[in-house]
Each structure stands twice: as structure tokens, then as C-alpha cells.
């Protein structure tokens, strides 16, 4: 390997995030004064914005270390979403975390490392690197979930994430070792080439199941979702928002890169797995969300259901449907962040988490109620919001593929199933809206919105609206991103 030929600028965004994280750890140590801690959060935001600028300068990208690390349009797209999510999460954390823990500086540092890990996941194209980066992300998320260590629920959240995460890591590693045994290589680039000759290989099918289980844990698809409701409920709410959005984006990008990019030629091995995961996630996610009384648990099940809708795009496997996957991720992240930011503002002030506690929110804080309304309507798929367009493209992609190819007519069942459960989901989203707008408040005290959180909320809600009203540029972005693997 000749070191002079390595284009280090391709790693610029990651290096900037890493240096910012280290700087935060260092400054946190030097600054004794408690009141300085908020500055560290702003420093983190600054670093993320710089990194975002660096991604704009990547251009066409390239590959590093013999296809171990790939910077292509897909990974740049994913890194930009992740950095954006990171900025919003830190903005929302500034007031939430203040005084809630003794380790404020480390919180921002670890959050940056979690973002770094997910950025690495979106570029990793070699099985060992993928495994290490996935474990890096899981580890930082475990620590952040258990951050309020004096609250039993937060500890429980971290512990459940740890135990299920360990199991999924072991299964993933076993799958990786089988793929290596079969192909003799670990880079996806070479695996794709050497695997093409197989019509059907039982071991390959088994390892596809194992790998889908490992990645399915990250996106919280049924049946690998068992950690999600408890972790979402117990973790500090900004971290819940982070898990529900960033973790899902990274999980889907690695799913796309591995299955579509790496094993795209032998799709017969894994399409059935995706169909099963999609159907199970949509059904169980939506049905379990209905009886929930805790709003974070309800959104956890709803995020499981959304993973199901997105998986339809993978199961259909056409240019159109894969574009829709990325577009949906964008719309879903914006709407979900909007909903969680409202929860952060509300729970910080009232310390209440039940859906019934949101009674009369429209009178206590019209802005929060309106934001929640738009976010939930987008997730329910009501026009003209982002979620509607996302669902439309996913379902339309499936229908057009089913109609154009008579052998794959069965694909039409997936969008039908999706539409049925989207209608079911309207019921539980409107439960919250009903409480906010139609029920009289018990406590009429208005709820203040901290300025940074308000800013983040504004960005998330405007983005949800913009994606719905003017989807063109976002769709073009998703399409150019998917071209690098399909």
C-alpha cells in the first residue's frame, strides 16, 4: 500500500467530527466551571456544520484502502442526513441535559462519537469494518441510553439495548464468517463478483438470515425489535429521537449497501427475508401501537411500523422503489424529529409522558400542538406532508413493478397490506391529536419553548412541509444517491 496515494480529503467529514469530539472531551476536563458546559454543545454543533460543509466538497467521492471504505453518493447523502439530525438533537439537548446529569460535556462528546460511528457505517464496504462500526454505534448508543443512571428506567433502557445488541452482534458475526467461508474475501466489492455464480446456496441463505438479523436490530424490524419500546421509553428523550432517526438511517444504508449493492445479483436469497420482515413489522408495529398509553412507547411501535413500510422498497428492488426508500427515510426523519422535539419540550417542563397528559396542549402552547399535529399527520401519511409523498412513492414503486412483470404480481400484496395498516395507524396518531385539540386541559399553565429547541423544531417542521409540498429536489437527491449501488 502506498500511503501517498490515499486521498485523505475523502475522510474530512469524519475527521472533523472526531476532532470536535476529542476537543469537547479535552475542554470539558480543563474547564472547571459548570456554567461553561453549554458552550461545549455549541462547539459540537459548529463541528457538525463544518463537517456538513466538508461533505459538500466531496464531489464524486471515491474509495479508500482497496474498497474497504467507500465514499459514494449514497454515503454522502446518508452522512448529510446524519449530520443534520445531529445538529437538531444537540440543539434540543442544550436545555434538556442542563442540570440533569453531572457529565454534560461527555454527553455531547459521546453523541458526536455516535454520529461518527453512523457516518462510518454508511461508508463501510468490508465485513470486518462494517461489524466494528456497527458495534461502535451500538456501544455509544447504549451509554447514551443509560445516561440518567439514577433513574431505573434509563438503566433498564441501556441494559436491554446491551443484551439484545450483544445477541444481534453475535448472530451478525456468525453470518459474516459464513460469507467469508464461502467466498474467501470480506470486501463487498469482491463478494459481489465471486458470489454471482451461485444459483442457490443453502449456507448463503442462512448467512443472509443472520446478517438481516444483525442489521434488522439497528432498524428495529420485527422480530428483532424487542429492545425498541423499552429503550425508547427509558432513554433520555433526545437520545430516543436520535435512536429513532439516525440509527434507522444508518441501518437502512448498510442494509442497502450489503444486500442491494453487494448481493444484488443473487436477490433470490434475500428478497423473501425482506418481505417477511416488512409484513411482520407493519402488522405488529401498528397493532402494538394502538393500546399504548405512553407517548414514547407509542412512537417506538410506530417507528417499527415505518421500518416495515421502508422494507417494502427493498423487497421490490427496482430503481424507483429504492429511490423511494431514501426519500422516505428523509421524510420520516424530519417528521419523527418534529414529534420528539415537542415531547422533549413538554416532558422537560411537566415531567409527564402519557398521551392523556397532552390534553389541551393547543391551549397551553399552540405552537407545540401545531408542530405535533403536522409531525403526526406526516407520519400517518396525510397529504400534503412529507410522509404522504414518501408512502406514495414506496407503494407506487411496488405497484408499477408488480404490473410490469407478471411473474412478480404477488408484490402487489405488499402495498395493499401497507395501505391497510396506514389506515390503522391514523387511529393512534389521531388519539394524540384528539387529546391536544379536543380535550380540555387539566393544568392550564402555558409551556415555554427554549430558543435552541424552538429553532430545531422550526427546522424539522419546515422540512416536513417542504418535502411534502415541493418534493422534486429531495427526490432528485435520493435518486442520485441510489445510483451508486443500483
Amino acid at each position: 500500500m502506498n500511503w501517498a496515494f490515499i486521498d485523505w480529503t475523502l475522510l474530512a467529514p469524519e475527521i472533523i467530527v472526531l476532532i470536535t469530539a476529542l476537543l469537547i472531551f479535552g475542554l470539558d476536563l480543563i474547564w472547571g466551571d459548570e456554567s461553561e458546559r453549554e458552550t461545549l454543545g455549541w462547539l459540537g454543533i459548529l463541528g457538525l456544520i463544518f463537517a456538513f460543509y466538508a461533505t459538500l466538497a466531496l464531489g464524486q467521492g471515491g474509495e479508500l484502502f482497496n474498497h474497504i471504505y467507500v465514499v459514494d453518493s449514497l454515503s454522502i447523502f446518508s452522512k448529510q442526513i446524519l449530520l443534520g439530525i445531529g445538529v437538531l438533537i444537540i440543539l434540543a439537548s442544550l436545555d434538556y441535559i442542563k442540570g440533569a446529569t453531572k457529565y454534560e460535556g461527555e454527553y455531547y462528546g459521546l453523541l458526536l462519537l455516535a454520529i461518527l460511528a453512523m457516518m462510518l457505517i454508511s461508508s463501510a464496504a468490508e465485513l470486518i469494518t462494517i461489524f466494528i462500526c456497527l458495534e461502535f454505534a451500538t456501544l455509544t448508543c447504549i451509554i447514551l441510553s443509560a445516561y440518567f443512571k439514577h433513574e431505573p428506567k434509563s438503566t433498564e433502557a441501556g441494559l436491554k439495548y446491551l443484551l439484545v445488541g450483544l445477541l444481534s452482534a453475535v448472530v451478525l458475526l456468525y453470518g459474516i464468517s459464513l460469507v467469508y467461508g464461502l467466498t474467501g474475501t470480506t470486501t463487498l466489492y469482491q463478494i459481489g463478483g465471486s458470489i454471482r455464480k451461485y444459483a442457490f446456496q443453502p449456507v448463503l441463505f442462512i448467512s443472509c438470515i443472520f446478517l438481516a438479523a444483525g442489521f434488522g436490530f439497528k432498524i428495529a424490524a420485527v422480530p428483532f425489535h424487542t429492545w425498541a419500546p423499552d429503550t425508547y421509553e427509558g432513554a433520555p428523550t433526545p437520545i430516543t429521537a436520535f435512536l429513532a432517526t439516525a440509527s434507522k438511517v444508518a441501518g437502512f444504508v448498510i442494509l442497502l449497501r450489503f444486500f442491494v449493492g453487494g448481493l444484488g445479483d443473487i436477490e433470490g436469497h434475500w428478497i423473501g427475508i425482506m418481505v417477511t420482515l416488512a409484513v411482520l413489522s407493519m402488522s405488529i408495529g401498528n397493532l402494538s401501537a394502538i393500546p399504548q398509553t405512553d407517548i414514547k412507547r407509542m412512537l417506538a411501535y410506530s417507528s417499527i411500523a415505518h421500518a416495515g413500510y421502508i422494507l417494502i422498497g427493498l423487497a421490490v428492488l427496482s430503481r424507483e422503489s429504492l429511490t423511494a426508500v431514501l426519500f422516505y427515510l428523509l421524510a420520516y426523519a424530519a417528521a419523527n424529529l418534529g414529534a420528539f422535539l415537542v415531547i422533549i419540550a413538554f416532558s422537560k417542563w411537566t415531567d409527564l409522558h402519557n398521551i392523556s397528559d397532552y390534553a389541551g396542549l393547543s391551549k397551553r402552547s399552540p405552537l407545540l400542538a401545531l408542530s405535533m399535529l403536522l409531525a403526526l399527520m406526516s407520519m400517518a401519511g396525510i397529504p400534503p406532508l412529507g410522509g404522504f409523498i414518501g408512502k406514495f412513492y414506496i407503494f407506487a414503486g411496488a405497484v408499477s413493478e408488480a404490473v410490469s412483470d407478471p411473474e412478480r404480481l404477488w408484490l402487489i400484496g405488499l402495498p395493499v397490506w401497507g395501505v391497510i395498516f396506514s389506515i390503522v395507524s391514523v387511529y393512534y396518531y389521531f388519539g394524540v391529536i384528539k387529546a391536544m385539540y379536543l380535550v380540555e386541559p387539566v393544568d392550564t399553565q402555558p409551556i415555554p419553548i427554549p430558543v435552541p429547541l424552538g429553532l430545531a423544531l422550526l427546522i424539522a417542521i419546515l422540512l416536513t412541509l417542504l418535502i411534502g409540498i415541493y418534493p422534486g429536489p429531495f427526490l432528485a437527491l435520493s435518486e442520485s444517491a441510489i445510483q451508486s449501488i443500483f
Partner: protein
Amino acid sequence: MIELTAQTIPFYILAVIAVISALAVVSLKNLVHSVLFLALFFFCMAGFYILLKAEFLAAVQIFVYVGGITVLFLFLIMLTFKVADKRLRQTNEQWLIAFVMVILFGWLLVTGLSETNWEIAEWSGPEKTIPVIGKLLLTTYIFPFEVVSVVLLAALIGAIVIARK
């Protein structure tokens, strides 16, 4: 199906010991006994590595797992209040479901692995593994190697944050 040759006999002996000790780890009632069987299991793993001509991995396995992790487990058990001599049940009422799942999983693996036409490499690997591993870690696999250092940093800081009062 089972051929007994100079290579396979040690494998079968090790395999039987490994399975029995792994079962002992998850079924014994005394934590200390479980940990000791875990150490035995790790030794068997090191034996497999030697059979596969990966002596360096075998040594690392013994240093890290037997020497490091098992001893850490023992310290933890001894320092935790009143756990060392307690008798704990390791299973709950779902053990039967778990057992059935494990059998199914094993059946899936065995049939899958035996139905596959594995390509057997002609080359049996390098004479000395240590220089090759070292070179690979610092050239081809430099990237994951460096990422691991950041992972360790995150783990260290996280452990301090979680464990300190």
C-alpha cells in the same frame, strides 16, 4: 461420515469437552463453577485454533479470554456482596421454548453447512502467522484497526460516566 484420523481425533475430543463445558456454564447453579467451566471452554477454543494452525490466535485466546476476562469475572463475583456462595437458578419457565429454538437453529445450521459445496483451498496458510497478521493490520486493515482505537476510547469514557458516582 465420521472419519477417525490423526487430525480429526483431537478435534472430536476438544469438541465434546467444549460442548459439555458450554452446557455447564449455562446450567450450573453456582456462579463460580460456571466461570471455571467458561475458562475450560475458552481453552478448548484455543485448541481449535491450534488445530487450524493459528498459533498466534490460540495464544491471544488464552491471554485475553482465560487470563483476562475469566479472572475479571471471578473478581467481580467475589467482590459483589454475597453472590459467591449463592445458588441461583439460571433458567426460567421459558426454557423449553428456548430449547426447541436451539434445536431448530442447530438443525438449520447442520443441514445448511452439509448441503453446501465448500471450496477447499489448496494452500494451507503461511508458515509463521504473526508477521502476516501484523502486516495486514497495519496495511490492508489499517482502517478498521484505527476505528477500534476510537471504539476503545468511547468505551472507556462511557464506563467512567456510567460507573462513577
